[in-house]
């Protein structure tokens, strides 16, 4: 029983949320708010007729490209910034500004420069995802316990060994929490770009369903993207478990 407790608690939490959704839809809080069951029926319909897969083929392009760029360059830049004071002064203000910028208001500017195609959408995903990855990685690297580094140097470790065997493992929990936050932000960015630039993929299902008042399909599309984000975050955590076994202290997203 105790072994299954996290699972039971998670199921209970899902039950409460979906139950509240169902009740709110039945009251209804608004004519534009469908019940949970109606939304799931719409999701099943979109799954069986294949339209949701066609939509995701479109939405995943900017999302995957943007998240990959953000993860690779984000962690790289973060390490660099964390290891060198000079680079910190040079780069971290840029990312702090990016993080604070009201992105939705800046989208017209991106469209002006990069057009309405994939490039603009990838940019939106990167602007959402990258700052939190970079800043988390940098601060994690900077906060590696000095005693560990001193120990390594006193054992005559090379710089490379200090980085790979001391700094990275010590920083990995925070790097991964940055990645998790960054990837979630990337999902938001991908949908934001599809709603604000040109309606394609899941963004198109959301806008089109709303314009023909098919609210169950609209909420089904929103639900599906949340579901995908949760699955992806779980996979990310499994990856962390494999790479840095010692990090697992039990997360809520297990």
């Amino acid at each position, binding site marked *: 029983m105790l072994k299954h407790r996290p699972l039971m608690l998670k199921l209970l939490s899902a039950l409460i949320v979906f139950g509240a959704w169902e009740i709110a839809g039945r009251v209804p*809080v*608004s*004519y*534009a708010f469908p019940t949970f069951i109606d939304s799931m029926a719409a999701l099943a319909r979109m799954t069986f007729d294949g339209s949701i897969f066609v939509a995701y083929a479109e939405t995943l392009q900017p999302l995957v490209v943007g998240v990959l760029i953000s993860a690779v360059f984000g962690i790289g830049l973060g390490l660099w910034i964390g290891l060198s004071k000079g680079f910190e002064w040079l780069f971290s203000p840029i990312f702090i500004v990016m993080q604070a910028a009201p992105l939705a208001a800046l989208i017209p500017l991106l469209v002006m420069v990069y057009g309405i195609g994939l490039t603009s959408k990838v940019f939106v995903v990167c602007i959402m995802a990258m700052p939190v990855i970079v800043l988390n990685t940098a601060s994690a690297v900077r906060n590696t316990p000095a005693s560990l580094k001193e120990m390594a140097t006193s054992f005559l470790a090379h710089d490379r060994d200090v980085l790979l065997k001391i700094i990275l493992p010590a920083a990995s929990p925070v790097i991964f929490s940055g990645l998790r936050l960054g990837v979630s932000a990337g999902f938001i960015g991908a949908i934001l770009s599809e709603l604000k630039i*040109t*309606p394609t993929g899941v963004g*198109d299902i959301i*806008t*089109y369903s*709303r*314009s*023909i*008042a*098919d*609210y169950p399909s609209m909420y089904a599309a929103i639900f599906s993207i949340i579901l995908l984000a949760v699955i992806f975050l779980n996979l990310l955590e499994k990856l962390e478990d494999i790479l840095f076994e010692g990090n697992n202290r039990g997360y809520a997203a297990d």
Partner: protein
Amino acid sequence: MNAFIARLAGVALATGMTLSAAQAETIRIALAEPPSDEMAAFFVALDRAKANGLDYEWTAFAEEELAIQAVLSGDMDIAFGTPYAAMQRSKAPVRIIFQLSKLVFFPVTTKEFTTLKDLDGQPIMLHSRGGGTDSIANVIEQKEGITFGERSYVPGSGNRVAAMLAGQGNATILDLSNRNKIIEEAGDRFNSLPMFEVKASDEALFANLDWIKENEEAVNILVKALHSTWSDMAKDPTIIRRETSPDGPIGQLPAEVLAEIDEFYTEAVAGGLYDPNGGGREAAKADMEWYVEAGQLEGDPATLNLEDFWYFAPLDAAMAQ
């Protein structure tokens, strides 16, 4: 301490009640976009209604769908749009009370096309999937027996004009003023194809039925003001510019925009954009046929009950006077 909290709660409750009482007297109008020259006639009608004792406040939403949802959820009293799909699918008890403008749009193409039939298989630029121009494209396909090629969506007639001028498209559907603009600027490159007459509504004023019945007097004042403005405008379109209050949202627009109001309304009235009688049953019937054909409504237009979509009493009262 408890007494203090009780008093605080009392004050909060009293303030809330005063506020809601004040709100009940002021009608809340949801605009689907920020005020522009195309709304000048509506604001003239609002000023006329205000002179007859109507108190109103307006809020501009970023999109028409948000304005519709605000009315559905009761945050706003009246909005613009053609929420037929919402009325039928979500059984929302909202009704249209006045047709503000008709779906007067024109297919504009490069010179290589001269009739609608030539557009068979050709890609076309439209406003949005499920929107007004999309429904026009659907009906053109059915009436002409053609199928358009790929539909790409570029929101805003002005943006589609820019895309056409930049050579990014060969065919699009534009509103009256943008059609005139592109033909005036580059009539040697583009054709405005002949289009059948459409009586269906592009923008209509709608509200929650219960709210309409509870606020019959305010609604009657508003519809009467709209009817009188639309009738006067049909006789002399320049009254819109003359009656626009310099302190109102339209009067505050840049001078260049204001200078074009006369031209816009003269062309629009000549182009049949406005029905001086507010649409009424004729428009409602045309809407049923149009929106069924366009795929927004389901059922047989002949058997759909007009009263499920329109509330005619305020317009009938205004017409009777």
